């Protein structure tokens, strides 16, 4: 075989091996660094109703996201995602004013999650929950 055609053949073979090798290295690397699904597994969050004071709000983590349970004075219990629909900051419950205020740009939400003022485009996302006697289960 001519030297240059042999050379081309060898370079092609090595090139193919190199590409396969690169794939064999990059795939485990990608899997290694990927966030795992189980790390923030779907777990229901449970509270005792007695823990929750009237007029107060209770923050919790679910599915890796922040949520808030509100028990307004004389109102019904409501559970929302605490993530502001504007740019993702966490809304703060104002006990005195009976509403949520977002600290980033002043967005205001009612105790039922509706937008009262400020930049947020949509109301707070409602989260499903079930009350069983003295316990409340979210999720």
């Amino acid at each position, binding site marked *: 075989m001519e030297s240059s055609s042999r050379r081309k053949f060898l370079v092609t073979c090595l090139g193919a091996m190199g590409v396969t090798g690169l794939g064999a290295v990059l795939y*485990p*690397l990608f*899997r*290694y*660094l990927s966030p*795992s699904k189980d790390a923030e597994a779907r777990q229901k969050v449970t509270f005792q109703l007695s823990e929750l004071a009237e007029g107060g709000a209770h923050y919790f983590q679910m599915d890796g996201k922040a949520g808030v349970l509100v028990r307004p004075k004389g109102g019904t219990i409501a559970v929302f995602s605490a993530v502001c629909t504007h740019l993702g900051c966490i809304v703060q419950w104002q006990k005195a004013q009976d509403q949520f205020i977002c600290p980033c740009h002043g967005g205001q939400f009612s105790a039922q999650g509706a937008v009262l003022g400020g930049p947020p485009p949509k109301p707070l996302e409602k989260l499903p929950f079930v009350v069983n006697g003295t316990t409340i289960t979210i999720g």
Partner: protein
Amino acid sequence: MSLFRKIHDWLNVRLGVDDLVEKQLTGYLLPANINRWYSLGSVLLFIFTLQVISGVLLLVYYVPDADKAFSSVTAIMNTVPYGWLIRLCHVVGSNMMVLVLILHMLSVLFMGSYKRPRELNWLSGFVILTLVMAISLTGYLLPWSQLSFWATTVATNSAGAIPFVGSYLVEFLRGGTLVGPYTLGRFFALHVAVIPIGIVAMIGLHLFLLERIGVSAPPFGLPDTKNPWKGDRFRHEDHPGGIPFFPNYLLSDLTSVAIYLAFFLLILFFAPNMFLPKDAFIPANPFQTPAHIKPEWYFLPNYQTLKIFPNEFIGLMVQGVGITFLALLPFIDRGREQHPLKRPLFMVCAVGGILLWIGLMIWGHYS
């Protein structure tokens, strides 16, 4: 004009890439009789790179807290996808690094490449050896297993033999009287930041010196094997009629790396527990020393030397003298001869020294 051509020309008029390629790659000539031992340096570069990459990846999941370190390593080995592969790469790689480094040093010794004008290269290489031993020692503690904890206790204890400052030195190394969370903190900082930067800097110096002075020619197959250096002025050692670095010697380097890789993968997949005895999988217990605790294989000769001498300080001194002799070898051995078979005194000392080192290691293993 093709795109490649256009880019090439753009870079060429700004950086002179053609000239660079000519000087560093195609026109960089190496001795015609160069042998495979010369590529151990490139293999070491490859091993070190792999260690840095696997180390940084381990950093993503490892927690350097005494309470969480062991469980974070267990998670890497069992839960994180391919975590076992990254961890084993790092463990096997660290032992390979020491092994190949010793082989590289032996090849330099036997081919007389430490002799003038390359004393600085030898010294910088010696510093790299010390740093690699230090990085291995500090890394050993990080998994916080019984093996880690107690091997570090034994190793740091030996500093106590130094008179006057000994016990203070031990406490300073450990960050406390005994090995504990403060030891983990400082060893982690050393292992992950300080020593790697040191090694990179020294490798840079080592390669600069190599290129500045020029590669030495192996003494084999030459009629006159005496060192040709005249010593009157600086002269880069050229090898006219030699092999170009690119593509010839580069391919030879890559072949050596591939052979190393085959050996490395063989150990990793088929004997990974060679370097991980069962004590490596038991969390550290400061109240219970396991039986038969001893350091890693490359520290066994030092360990055994300390055990031989009734006075620990003498044991340390003997090792200090030996290591200093090795470091200053180019200044002690001033002969011009490079061929190993024409240096009988050197051969006797070197072979004797190697056998003694291996003998102490085997003795240390079985004692």
